[in-house]
C-alpha cells in the first residue's frame, strides 16, 4: 500500500487549473521525484500534501489518513511525522544552527537538554555541520543552510521527507553533497522521500520513480530508465533539455513577421 495516495486531484488558482485530475502513488521507502517545468505546481503539490492548501476536489491520503478531512490537531499530529525541506531552507534567523535543529524537539518533546544536545549533534553530524552549530543562519552559505534545514527536517525521525527544489542554486560540490545526503538518509532512516525538482541530472541519479507533470496532468511516470526510453516528444524535450519542441521556446502570440510589419508603437 502506498504511503501517499493522490486521487483525481483538482486545484485551481482563479480560473487556471493547476491540477486537473492528477493521480499519484508514493511508495514507502522509495525516492519519488515530481518533475516538470517551472510553474507546473510542483511546490503547490507539496503544500497540498502537507495540508497547507485545500484541493478543489479529489483526495490526498497520507498513511491512510485523508489529509483534508483531519481536524487541526489531527493535521498537526500528522505533520510531526512529515519533514519538509524548503527551497530557502526556512531556518529561523534569530537563533543559532543548534537551536534551529533543536527547535522541533523542544516544541514537541519533554526531553532533557542533555539528550536534546546529543540528538542535535547526531543530526548535524549526519549532514557534516556538527562544528557549525554555533553559527547563525546569516553566516551560512546557501548549501550549508539547506543541510541544516535537512537536519532539522529529520530531527523528529519522520516517516517521510518532502524536498522542495533541493538542488536549485547550488554549486557542484554542494549539489553533490545534497544528492548524496538525500540518498543516504532515505536508506539509513528508512524514509520515504518526495523530491520536487526540475534538475534532471541530479534527480534521475537518485529517484526510484519519477512523475512528470505539465499543464495540470501527469504526462508520464516510471523509473528514470523508462522515462529516458519514452517515445513521448514532450518527455524527451524535458529530459534532454531541448530549447524547442512540444513546449515552444517562444511565448505564444502574434507571428514575428506580422509583428515587425505592424505599425503599432508601444507607449
Amino acid at each position, binding site marked *: 500500500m502506498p504511503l501517499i495516495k493522490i486521487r483525481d486531484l483538482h486545484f485551481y488558482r482563479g480560473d487556471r487549473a493547476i491540477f486537473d485530475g492528477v493521480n499519484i502513488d508514493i511508495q514507502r521507502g522509495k525516492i519519488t521525484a515530481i518533475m516538470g517545468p517551472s510553474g507546473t505546481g510542483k511546490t503547490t503539490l507539496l503544500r497540498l500534501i*502537507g495540508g*497547507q492548501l485545500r484541493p478543489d476536489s479529489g483526495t490526498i491520503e497520507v498513511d491512510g489518513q485523508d489529509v483534508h478531512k483531519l481536524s487541526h490537531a489531527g493535521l*498537526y*499530529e500528522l*505533520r*510531526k511525522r*512529515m519533514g*519538509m525541506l*524548503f*527551497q*530557502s531552507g*526556512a*531556518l*529561523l*534567523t534569530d537563533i543559532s544552527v543548534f537551536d534551529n535543529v533543536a*527547535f*522541533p524537539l523542544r*516544541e*514537541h518533546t519533554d526531553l532533557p537538554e542533555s539528550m536534546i544536545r546529543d540528538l542535535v549533534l547526531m543530526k548535524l553530524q549526519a549532514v557534516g555541520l556538527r562544528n557549525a552549530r554555533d553559527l547563525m543562519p546569516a553566516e551560512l552559505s546557501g548549501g550549508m543552510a539547506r543541510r541544516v534545514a535537512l537536519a*532539522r527536517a529529520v530531527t523528529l525521525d519522520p516517516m517521510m521527507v518532502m524536498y522542495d527544489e533541493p538542488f536549485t542554486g547550488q554549486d557542484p560540490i554542494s549539489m553533490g553533497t545534497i544528492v548524496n545526503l538525500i540518498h543516504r538518509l532515505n536508506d539509513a532512516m528508512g524514509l520515504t522521500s518526495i523530491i520536487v525538482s526540475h534538475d534532471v541530472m541530479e534527480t534521475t541519479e537518485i529517484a526510484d520513480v519519477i512523475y512528470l507533470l505539465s499543464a495540470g496532468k501527469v504526462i508520464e511516470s516510471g523509473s528514470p530508465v523508462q522515462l529516458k526510453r519514452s517515445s513521448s516528444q514532450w518527455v524527451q524535450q524535458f529530459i534532454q533539455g531541448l530549447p524547442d519542441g512540444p513546449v515552444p521556446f517562444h511565448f505564444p502570440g502574434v507571428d514575428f513577421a506580422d509583428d515587425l510589419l505592424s505599425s503599432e508603437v508601444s507607449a
Partner: protein
Amino acid sequence: MIDFIRSLGRWGLDTLQRLGSGHLFLWYMVKGIPEVLLRFSLVIQQLQSVGVRSVMIILVSGLFVGMVLGLQGYNTLVDFGAEESLGVLVSLSLVRELGPVVCALLFAGRAGSALTAEIGLMKSTEQLTGMEMMAVDPIRRIITPRFVAGIISMPLLAAIFSAVGIFGGFIVGYGLLGVDDGAFWSQMQVKTDWYDDVLNGVIKSVVFGVVVTWIALFEGYDASPTSEGVGRATTRTVVHSAFAILGLDFVLTALMFGGI
C-alpha cells in the same frame, strides 16, 4: 460612473474582508494567551525587544515633552499668578493624556514598525510556513508572545514617560524659572487623583498597547511576502496605529472624563 461604483464596491468588500481577518487574527491571539502565559520565557524574550529597547526613546521624548510643558505652562500660569500650580498642570497633562498618547505613538513608530517588519520578513522567508510544517502553530509560538509583551510593555513605558516628563517639567519650573519646589510637588500630589487620573491613564495605555500591537502583528502576518509588501505593511502599521490611538483617545476621554 459604473467603474467608480464597481471600484467603490471592491474597496468596501476588501476593507470588510480585512476587518474580518483582523478580528479572527485577534481571536486566535487571545485564545493562545493561556498557553503562552504557561511558557512565560517566550514573553520575556519579547519584553526585551518590544519593551526594553523602546525605553531610551521614551526617556528622551518624555523628558523633552515635560520640559516644554513646564515652559509653556509657566508662561500661561504666571499671567494669573498661579505658577505654583505648574506641577498640577504638568502632571495632569502627562498622566491623563500625553503619557499614554505620545508614548503609544512613539511605541507604534519604534516597536510596532519593527514587529511588522519582523513578522513580514519571517513570512517572506517561509519561516512561518516552515513552522506550520513542523506542526508548530506560528500564532501561538511567534505572534501571541509578542502580543502579550506589547500589552505589558505599553503601560510601563507610559508610566516611565509620565514620570520622566514630570521630572522634566520640574527641572524647567524649579531649576530655570524659579517656581517653588514645595508648591510644585505638594499641589501635584493633592490635585492628581489616583483613580480619576492615574488609573484612567493606565487603562488608556493598556488599550493602546492592545490596539497598536494587534495592528502591527496583523499587518506583518497579512503582508505580501515581498520587500515592497513588507515596506507597505510597515507604513500601514504606523499610519493605522496613529489614527487608532488618536480616535480611541477621544472615545476613552469622553467615557472617562465625561463632558459629552
